[in-house]
């Protein structure tokens, strides 16, 4: 088994605005199973960050426990990282974000980490609208503990050992919509042409962005009875709109006037361009988004793409009225200006 990736890279590889190639956004060589969907997500994150020309040291990657949560080791070697306790990534992310709002926060979690042990944490970080991208690598099983079905596995789905899921599944996209996320998408690790623009848009989005990524477990959940296998997902995947990410620097072409296309301006000035496939699609209707997801599920289809976006909503810092300067940059005299300031405040109430 190879543990070191050759340092040679293609001499004609594209470089971004920082002069870096996508290989400069790599991490250690993955020790996940061969063919694991998480490795594709890893590569999509690296590609998205490279294409956005993000300086790696301005990114913090956080994760919990699980196969999914190992993944940050395999991307962005030069970013900050925190591998937290099981299901507690949202708390650590919140703390970090409070201390330094200038970093870009990438959360990487799994179905067990977010839908079981950390479901409460998940619910509250969504409510708080913390400015971060929260990704769930969703394969429906607990790979690290040898393939027990996860809470996201649909009722009746059979594990590799033949055991069926007895309970109703938790749909994390529906949950995120209900809890007030302002960017909600679902994608598939095997479709980078969809996943990469969504990650780029989610990073550019201000507020809580959630992407549920179906990521097949080749070892424990790629069997014929599974609806998380590569073959099943390839056969049942559908989308309501194709999302394209147009960076700030690129000249925005005059809109062709097609009614099936919509440009959404993101916080940093970049554009999320949506091309409707389903005429009934509306990226701004939260209730409809939840209905659509459930309808597709009832039809045995997997709806992917951007479900909902609210680019205007306030994020946690705005709701809380925190200072514009990151807390970690504030000096003692700013945070604790002394008795004379207290005196002035007290005077104002007399």
């Amino acid at each position: 088994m190879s543990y070191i990736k050759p340092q040679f890279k293609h001499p004609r590889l594209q470089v971004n605005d920082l002069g870096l190639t996508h290989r400069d956004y790599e991490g250690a060589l993955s020790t996940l199973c061969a063919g694991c969907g998480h490795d594709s997500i890893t590569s999509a994150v690296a590609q998205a960050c490279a294409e956005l020309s993000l300086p790696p040291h301005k990114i913090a990657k956080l994760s919990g426990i699980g196969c999914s949560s190992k993944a940050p080791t395999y991307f962005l070697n030069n970013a900050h990282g925190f591998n937290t306790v099981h299901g507690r990534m949202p708390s650590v992310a919140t703390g970090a974000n409070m201390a330094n709002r200038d970093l870009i926060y990438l959360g990487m979690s799994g179905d067990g980490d977010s839908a079981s042990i950390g479901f409460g944490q998940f619910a509250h970080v969504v409510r708080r609208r913390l400015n971060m991208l929260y990704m769930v690598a969703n394969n429906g099983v607990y790979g690290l503990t040898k393939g027990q079905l996860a809470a996201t596995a649909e009722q009746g789905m059979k594990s590799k050992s033949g055991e069926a899921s007895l309970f109703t599944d938790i749909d994390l996209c529906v949950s995120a919509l209900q809890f007030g996320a302002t960017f909600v998408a679902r994608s598939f690790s095997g479709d980078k042409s969809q996943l990469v623009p969504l990650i780029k848009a989610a990073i550019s989005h201000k507020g809580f962005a959630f992407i549920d990524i179906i990521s097949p477990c080749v070892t424990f959940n790629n069997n014929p009875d599974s609806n998380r296998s590569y073959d099943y997902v390839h056969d049942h995947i559908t989308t309501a709109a194709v999302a394209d990410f147009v960076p700030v620097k690129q000249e925005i072409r005059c809109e062709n006037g097609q009614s099936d296309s919509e440009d959404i301006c993101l916080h940093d000035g970049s554009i999320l361009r949506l091309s409707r496939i389903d005429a009934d699609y509306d990226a701004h209707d939260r209730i409809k988004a939840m209905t659509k997801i459930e309808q597709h599920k009832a039809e045995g289809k997997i709806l992917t793409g951007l479900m909902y976006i609210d680019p205007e909503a306030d994020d946690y810092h705005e709701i809380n009225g925190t200072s514009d300067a990151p807390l970690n940059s504030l000096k003692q005299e700013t945070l604790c200006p002394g008795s004379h300031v207290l005196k002035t405040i007290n005077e104002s109430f007399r």
Partner: protein
Amino acid sequence: MLKKTDTSNFRYFLNVVDCQQACPAHTPVPEYIRLISDRKYTESYMLNWESNVFPSILGRVCDRPCEPACRRGRVEEEPVAICRLKRVAADNKEDINSYLPIIPSDKNGKHIALIGAGPASLTVARDLLPMGYKITLFDREQKAGGMMRTQIPAFRLPETVLEEELDLILDMGLKTCFGEGISSMKSLLDEKYDAIFVGTGAPLGRELKIPGRDEAGDHLSIGIDWLSSVAFGHTKKIDKRVIVLGGGNTAMDCCRTARRLGGKEVKVVVRSSLEAMKASPWEKTDAMAEDVELIGNHKPLEFVMREGKFVGVLFEEVQSHYDENGKRTLIDTGNTVLMECDKVLIAIGQDTAFPWIERDIGIDFNQWDQPVLEEASLQASIPKIFFGGDAAFGPKNIITAVAHGHKAAISIDLFCQGKDPVVERPVSDFNLVSQKMGIHEWSYHNKIKQDVRYAVPHMDRKQAIKQLASEVELGYDEKMGLAEASRCLNCDIHTVFSESICIECSACEDICPVDCINFLQVDDEVEQVSDERVLSQLRVSDINPLQEILISAPLKTGQLMIKDEDMCLHCGLCAERCPTGAWDMKKLTLKDLKATIL
């Protein structure tokens, strides 16, 4: 729609092994380098001997077409030192006698004449003797070797090394007639040989017909004739001030030999720029290291005589201009320079010469006085006569002569069996064997070493120019040889893709360190998509047109797997990360290497 790559024959796979494909004799380079890595030097030597006949000689003086082709030179600065590794195998080999072919005592009744005892003829002999042919070898010189003996100086190729490999063939039991040149093809034809092979090289050094040529007399020599005279010990010294005209490897051998025979001020003067000189870069480096002055952009005008005495050469300065097709024209600047010297060696090229072949016996010659040959078989217009080496198409190099020898041997064998040497040529079968040893284990060293090329040690330069016969290059020692061998990328271990079991998880695409692998959705139903447009979507769209591209049949979801072979490191990571074994690392074996020579 992009067509699925044809992998039904060996051509695609051979093209991916750049070094082997570039070698005229298709020497299995990665395989012999792996044997060196395993310290199986004798086996490595014999694998070389089987395909290129003169591994010790070529490990020193080969033109190395393999090295500019080496993939390593594309992913980093320098290719693997393939040629010098050949010498490592030769230097460290043990007794090879048990590996040599057995020569049958019962002959097959066919008698072949070989004219010229250079690399081409000797290869024919080596190939045909084990098959029971009776062979008579003719050469005008007293000893075998041809240009390897007469034109390559001993400080590059020691005589002992030369003789060892010549003897391997001469000891196989052939009749030699040395010291007697053939004066008539007609009378040779009357001697009832079943076939005749002409490997007489390009023995005629080109003349420089400018004023003063006749008057200068002994002050001028033709380079190859002079080298030959040095090789046979007839010439033992040279004057102090020497000018060598010409910029090829013969010129380099002339100037370096002159330094050793007493030349103090040795200049090489060429009409082209120094960059455009034909000599191999390492030959130029070696010449300069021995204080030879290389002067470019000078065209010789006249050999100058003053009061009956030779003074030197008058040159005109020129400039090279290249048109858009890369064709060079020399533009005179009008400035002339007289370079004084005592001796001039003319090394501006050499030609074939067939004064001994009568032109009325049925052998057709073309406008350049070259025999008209069937390219696939090297057969002349008299069916029993075959040509090879420099004699066939003009001067090339030793390894090309060896390749011709193999090709002609197949032709002669077919001809003697009454078969057509073109139509009935054998086609090589090929085999691809998985190198998988365990779940993520391979039989070869797939870990890519980042080492840069190791320089070959030389003897002290001041000492070197004092002795004519001391070999300048010392060769790698075993440790360096092993380190250099580990730089080989094992390009003969192919990434083989099976469409039917691919689940399109993109693991291979993600892991590939050099972005070779692409999965592209080609939507042909809406509109006909041009191949160029599909290829423009590759991860690295700036493709190298000289390299192969592996294109799969449409996969389950309609995607195509497209692999650009250009930079592939053969690291096997795609196969390691493939959950279904759709990628496998398989070693190419060509069943009949000689039959693959085009």
